[in-house]
């Protein structure tokens, strides 16, 4: 329970940091991340408190919708920061596959009136987003830039995405095979990864956007000297 509270606190801190450093965050990338964070927080609260059960909306359905919305936000973010057209094209094709899988899964759940977690769409979305994140790092290595990679907000967002999805990949994949006790035990992984993700997002909000940074190593060291 303590970890769950801590997860909510981490969400709130991330949102507060966004507004405190609002000057640094007037860009599309940061806006996508904050909208996604707010949506995740609201979704988690609604599911945990079962707020919509009274009007007949099940939490499993909300989770299926969340998977699609989450993927859409993060896919849009990755395609926004990636420059390589081939990688972008690959991501678009993968997205198409993801949406087919996700909607088939919702339809199947609806037809079978099943209440199982959408493990397959989550696994597909995780794989696509992890590949997108690796492609981002690959692109950063390829481009001969003089600014340090960890001085970029996009780097921390991608680190957050990667840590969260690689950390929870096996959890969601095996979730339906776990016993109820194990589900509770292993859900800690999800909360732990969420906290880490929020910390990395917070770091990205604190940093100045890429176009306002020192673009030259000489200037960087000169500024350090001053």
């Amino acid at each position, binding site marked *: 329970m303590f970890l769950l509270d801590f997860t909510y606190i981490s969400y709130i801190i991330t949102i507060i940091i966004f507004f405190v450093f609002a000057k640094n965050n007037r860009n599309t990338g940061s806006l996508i991340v904050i909208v996604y964070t707010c949506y995740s927080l609201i979704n988690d609260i609604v599911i945990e408190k079962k707020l919509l059960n009274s009007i007949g909306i099940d939490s499993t359905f909300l989770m299926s919708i969340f998977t699609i919305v989450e993927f859409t936000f993060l896919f849009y973010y990755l395609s926004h920061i990636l420059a390589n057209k081939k990688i972008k094209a690959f991501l678009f094709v993968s997205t198409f596959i993801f949406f087919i899988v996700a909607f088939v899964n919702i339809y199947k759940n609806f037809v079978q009136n099943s209440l199982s977690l959408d*493990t397959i769409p989550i*696994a597909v979305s995780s794989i696509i987003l992890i590949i997108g994140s*690796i492609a981002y*790092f690959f692109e*950063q*290595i390829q481009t*001969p830039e*003089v600014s*340090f*990679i*960890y001085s970029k907000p996009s780097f921390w967002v991608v*680190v957050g995405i*990667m*840590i969260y999805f*690689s*950390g*929870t*990949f*096996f*959890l969601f*994949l*095996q979730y*339906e*095979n*776990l*016993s109820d006790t*194990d589900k509770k035990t*292993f859900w800690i*992984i999800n909360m732990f990864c969420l906290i880490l993700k929020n910390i990395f997002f917070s770091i990205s909000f604190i940093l100045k956007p890429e176009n306002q940074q020192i673009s030259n*190593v*000489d200037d960087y060291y000169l500024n350090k000297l001053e």
Partner: protein
Amino acid sequence: MLLLQVNTSGANVSLVLFFGTIGMLALTIGLIVFIIFHQRKVIRYQMTLQKMEQEQQKMLLNASIRLQEEERQRIAADLHDDAGPLLATARLYLNENLVNLDKTTQLQSIYNAKQIIDDTIQLIRNISHSLMPPTLKNFGLESAVNDQFQKISSSGIINASCRFHDYKERLQTDNELIVFRVIQELINNILKHSNASFIHLTQNTNGNKFYIRMHHDGKGITQADFERMNKSAAGLGLKNIQSRLKVLHGRIFFEKDASQTYYKVTIELNREDNQ
């Protein structure tokens, strides 16, 4: 992985989940750490390169300043040691006492003064020509180089010849002067250090490239020697060549002929940049 999902028992599922998560996180963290350290390494390498380039630039600048100073000292010495005494002597012939002398002595003095003034004019012309060869200014690089080679050849010490194959379109005047100075510096080095019995210069073009090649049979240098000397404090003339060619975005290559008999120097320029 999906097969695992179907076939594993409860305990195995927990194991797969535990080790799978640990493995994925370890891989992710490993990748991130690798990216960070790799990028730091690349930046450090770039900085070292930048620093080396700055040092090279500084050396070239120093060489160019020193050469300029040497040139000024040479002109000052020429004017002070040659033109100064000549004009002073002319002034002696034309002193105030001249009016009191007899007519024959007066005429002799005026004649001597005229001779000295003519010598001074010639001296100043020579200095002026060494600063800016009139042939180069009026007739272009080809004529100036031909002129220079004829002078060297007529000295009888060395056999010098040159041939321009494709020089219908002249380079810009300023750039011709720079190329001419580079050729002069190279000839000077060959005459001073190589003990060559001949120098042969050819000019060619290939597409957008403009080439000047010089062959000689003396003791020359290779590209490695050139680069080494460029980085050291020695080789002022070579640094000067390098800095002049940098202005033209040109390159120079020193090599030994395949037959190991001749040394070859090639100057390469972009025609579009310099015409």
